[in-house]
């Protein structure tokens, strides 16, 4: 066999090489590859598992105290939501009132701010629920299969949001986008499937967002794997113009909201 690539050796080190036996045999006779493996081992062996700081016996109760307080705040925010896309922003505001930093919201802040402004300026707004949703969608609200489909689409949108954020947040003169591209490529096929399913079910809003998303994912996949600052800025502008991050975020939240545990918690002791 020819010399082992670094990828071969990494997989071999972790015991996942497809041709483990052949690589082992090759290493016995090839000083160059054996040396490369030793160098790799030296580095990886030395990266020890970080030991998490100790947490005392009271830690579980402390976690529950924080979680239950956050759940109560979320419940209160949900009880009287305003209509339309403003509802989403209100929920974000309610959640950021936590005394801990709301990191997820901070992550979205920059992208959302630009996207919201773009959406408003362009005269767009998120459809008011449930008036503008189709009758077919309303009719299947209690259907377990439809719930499962919406939950899956919600997860898909969250993952896609991650790719978009990675691209939007990239900075530098030459940015390596190959990881984002690999991830986007994985998402395109499922995006197509969900878009067809949503269209077939008469959920034109979901289908439309997925359609926009697919175009952006394709643009990422077919774009340069190492982007210049100008290329990144152009991608960011196109994403902003479509208010895509905002739509994806709001739709994911809406879909997940529909799958909340059906019964509210009993009074806590």
């Amino acid at each position, binding site marked *: 066999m020819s010399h082992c690539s670094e990828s071969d050796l990494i997989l071999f080190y972790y015991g996942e090489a497809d041709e483990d036996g052949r690589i082992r045999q090759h290493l016995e006779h090839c000083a160059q590859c054996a040396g490369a493996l030793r160098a*790799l081992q030296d580095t990886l062996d030395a*990266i020890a598992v*970080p030991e998490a700081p100790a947490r005392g016996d009271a830690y579980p109760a402390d*976690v529950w105290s924080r979680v239950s307080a956050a759940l109560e705040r*979320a419940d209160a925010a949900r009880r009287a939501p305003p209509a339309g896309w403003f509802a989403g922003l209100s929920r974000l505001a309610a959640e950021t009132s936590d005394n801990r930093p709301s990191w*997820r919201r901070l992550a979205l802040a920059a992208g959302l701010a630009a996207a919201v402004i773009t959406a408003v300026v362009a005269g767009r707004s998120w459809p008011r629920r449930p008036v503008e949703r189709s009758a077919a969608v309303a009719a299947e609200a209690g259907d377990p299969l439809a719930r499962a489909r919406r939950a899956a689409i919600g997860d898909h949108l969250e993952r896609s949001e991650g790719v978009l954020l990675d691209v939007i947040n990239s900075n530098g003169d030459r940015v390596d986008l190959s990881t984002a591209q690999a991830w986007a490529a994985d998402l395109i096929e499922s995006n197509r499937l969900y878009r067809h399913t949503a269209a077939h079910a008469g959920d034109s809003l979901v289908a439309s967002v997925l359609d926009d998303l697919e175009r952006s994912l394709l643009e990422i996949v077919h774009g340069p794997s190492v982007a210049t600052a100008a290329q990144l800025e152009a991608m960011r502008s196109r994403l902003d113009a479509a208010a895509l991050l905002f739509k994806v975020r709001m739709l994911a939240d809406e879909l997940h909201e529909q799958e909340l545990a059906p019964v509210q918690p009993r009074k806590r002791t």
Partner: protein
Amino acid sequence: MGAPEPAALLARARQGDSDAFRVLVERHSHAVFRLAYRMTGSEEDAEDVVQETFLRAYRQLGRFQARAEFGTWLYRIAANCAVDFMRARAARRDQSRAEGLERLDADAAAASAHPGPDRLAESAEARARLARALADLTPLERAAFTLRHHEGRSTREIAELLGIGASAAKHSVFRAVRKLRASLAPLRAMGERP
């Protein structure tokens, strides 16, 4: 009377019994914190991930399949929360990360200046360099590397946990290892170990 069985607790939690959910949170909080810490490399960040993990778990209880293992399901949520968190941190390119790295550098410098054994100084400097190298990985690369290297997960498991394809999972591990090797090469040249 023994502790309630996980299945019974889950059934009660799914019906809205907050006491049952409390028991689940308390049982798994240490394990979720450990994973969150390994993935984010920061105590404070890990605490945020812990809280968000349980909030997401609560919201998604209706989707949990009784045949699955609750701990595994929670592990998946925690891993994804950590990725989201790291993405948020990357978005801010934030002050806290810079401060954290400065702190590590300061620790390394202090250790170097300390009259103690050389090994201590080497170790502190190596830790600082490793922390910096890990912080420079993309969120997905860091998550994939942590799951592969620290958690012993296979590529297939990483793909399932992070909801990505096997090719993306593999690619992320490769890139993470390459970047770490490049960052840590100067240490190797000096004969130190991270």
